[in-house]
């Protein structure tokens, strides 16, 4: 069983990463990665929603009939998103002001839906929870990495406003690496999102090739 969880973790974080391998959830990936902090925040919110909805789908999997499974998944994801949205607005308001606009975007992310269909629907509760969580963390890492590259090249800063997201203790993370006028504006505009995402996909494959791993084709069993 331990090996199973190891595989789940490795799949989510690297081998089958939602963004870099399956190329799912491109909408938030492009929209929310103009800074590393935005990417991190969006990723964390998505991870929470993914873990919760995977758990619920696995728990109810005996009652979700094949014919209505897709509407039920969407219902569950949308409910979790609304729940997170309301709770953050009420109790984590500063964070909500940063992320609030983007939380509803999670509904349109097909990565949660793909994982529910491909994994949570046929596994027990705990592995499903782990899969949702690790896929979410893998998503977070990818978004943070894309955001970091775009932010450094585009604005010359790294983790700007991290204190707003994580609390004043994380003020030390806010760095300025290049003077402001050196930023390449295109990197923080949508084209930069496509460029950097593409380059990171290539970089990830190059690492895999160097490690002698077979190249995994994108989203074979979980087109979303």
């Amino acid at each position: 069983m331990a090996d199973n969880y190891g595989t789940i973790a490795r799949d989510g974080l690297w081998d089958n990463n939602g963004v870099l391998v399956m190329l799912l959830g491109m909408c938030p990936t492009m929209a929310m990665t103009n800074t590393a902090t935005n990417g991190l925040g969006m990723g964390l919110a998505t991870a929470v929603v993914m873990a919760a909805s995977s758990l619920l789908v696995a728990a109810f999997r005996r009652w979700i009939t094949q014919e209505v499974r897709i509407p039920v998944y969407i219902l569950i994801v949308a409910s979790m998103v609304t729940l997170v949205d309301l709770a953050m607005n009420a109790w984590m308001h500063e964070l909500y002001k940063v992320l609030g606009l983007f939380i509803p975007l999670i509904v349109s992310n097909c990565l949660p839906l793909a994982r529910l269909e491909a994994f949570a629907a046929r596994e027990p509760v705990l592995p499903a929870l782990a899969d949702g969580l690790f896929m979410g963390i893998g998503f977070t890492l990818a978004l943070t990495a894309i955001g970091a590259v775009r932010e450094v090249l585009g604005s010359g800063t790294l983790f700007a406003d991290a204190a707003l997201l994580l609390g004043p203790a994380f003020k030390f993370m806010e760095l300025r690496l290049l003077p402001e006028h050196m930023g390449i504006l295109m990197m923080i505009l949508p084209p930069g999102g496509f460029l950097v995402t593409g380059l990171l996909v290539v970089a990830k494959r190059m690492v895999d090739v160097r490690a002698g791993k077979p190249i995994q084709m994108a989203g074979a069993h979980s087109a979303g």
Partner: protein
Amino acid sequence: MNRGFAFHGAVLGAFCLGFGAVLALTNRLTEADIATRANEDRQASLGQVIPASLHDNDLLGDTLSIPAGDGRELTIYRALRHGAVTGVAYEVSATGYAGKIRMMLGVGADGRVLGVRVLAHKETPGLGDKIEVKKSDWIERFAGLALGDPPADKWAVKKDGGQFDQFTGATITPRGVVTAIRDGLAFFSEHQAKLTEVR
């Protein structure tokens, strides 16, 4: 799995009912807190455009409703000190490069700008977002100006012959903001009697 569609409908219906109930409950639990937070936000944005020394009343508690040009009701927050109106604040909106820019405009009883702050916008990061006080002090230059000061033809960005700086690579955003503030001041002078009347 060859059951009738009534069965599947019932399954889907049951899930909808269940999650609907969970959401209704969450809404009940968070409603009051969310309303409090929204009030705090409004209070904070009002505090930035009306100096605390100008009023001794609760800005949120003393409001007027006046029909704006576009047929909607505009909420006016009034600052009173010793029973006299010292200033008002209301939302104005500008047409930017990427949709509406919502701003809170504070005007003193003498018709001069007390302060302007952008509440929400979708302008290009790095170009149009210099209207935020967090990114640049540009928006602070409006404080103290009035409808005739500068004269009407100078209420424009430099490119249009006015006196306000545009941003490198972004003219539409500051043009919209300047126009909206000028229109906001025109609204004040049009309704001055009603806005500053003590009830």
